[in-house]
């Protein structure tokens, strides 16, 4: 639901790096997005295609790597991966304790981009 402002930020950062590096054309952008985010890949690309018209990034493909949700057990400190849909009904695979805190899974990160 909030793909548009996220996409605007992506384009802003990509164009800044394109300019610094004397890029003629951005071909692809590699993103790392946590699985806890509700962003829809298809919509990010659609918004990006619309916003990037007439810029160096027009036509660039967004390649999204979904980063796992990692939890840390509050009792034994073991870390383990969780599925988004089951995250409220988790138990530590090491000790069975239910309480845990989020280690990662909220990433919004631009890793690198393929350019000419």
């Amino acid at each position: 639901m909030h793909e548009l402002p996220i996409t605007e930020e992506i384009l802003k950062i990509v164009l800044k790096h394109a300019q610094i590096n004397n890029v003629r054309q951005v071909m692809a952008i590699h993103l790392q997005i946590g699985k806890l985010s509700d962003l829809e890949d298809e919509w990010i690309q659609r918004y990006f295609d619309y916003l990037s018209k007439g810029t160096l990034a027009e036509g660039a493909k967004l390649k999204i790597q979904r980063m796992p949700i990692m939890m840390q057990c509050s009792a034994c400190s073991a870390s383990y991966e969780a599925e988004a849909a089951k995250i409220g009904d988790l138990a530590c695979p090491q000790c069975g304790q239910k309480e845990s805190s989020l280690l990662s899974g909220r990433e919004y990160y631009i890793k690198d981009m393929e350019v000419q």
Partner: protein
Amino acid sequence: MGEVRLIEVKEEILADNIKVAAGIRERLRNTKTMLLNLMSSPGSGKTSLILQTIANLKDSLRIGVIEADIDSTVDAEKVAARGIPAVQLKTGGFCHLDATMVTKGIDALKLSELDLVIIENVGNLVCPAEFDTGAHKNVMILSVPEGDDKPLKYPLMFSICDLLLVNKIDYLSLSDFDMSALRKRVLALNPRIIIMEVSCKTGSGIEDWINWLKKEVKVFS
């Protein structure tokens, strides 16, 4: 066609928002104004809770309210009618507030004369969880008619909040809402969260909320 090369970017997409939010927190530290971000689904009782809070605290704390709505001023008018400074932000179709929008809200308030500013975020359990508003405390409301399965559907919101108010407990006898299942689900996600059961309608549990808020504002100032 030239050769394709790879450029490292290594940037947080939301870096700008995170920076603006940190700036808000620091600015409000200086004026000793605590900023509280209140989030929930539409209709779960955000405005009712704010009105209850004002009724209980307006003689002991100086409160301001920032109301966010997609396109209406109904809530800000209700708050202003209680003699409380209120700013209405229209998000223009956006489903959440970000730190830049909140800056506009706090710019319109006399911060040096306020102990507490409450943001009533846009009614939505998804997007507001992703954007740091610059608040010192994040509070959410879940109302009984919404169901005890919401932590399974919107885990991020439950994982970022300091306090959860389960509102409309006067509806409990009419529903199959399982309070102990809800508590287990929420605590599994966020063991530090405080859970309170309230009814803005009957006033049940409101005292606990008011005491928590008073204590937090006191610690802050």
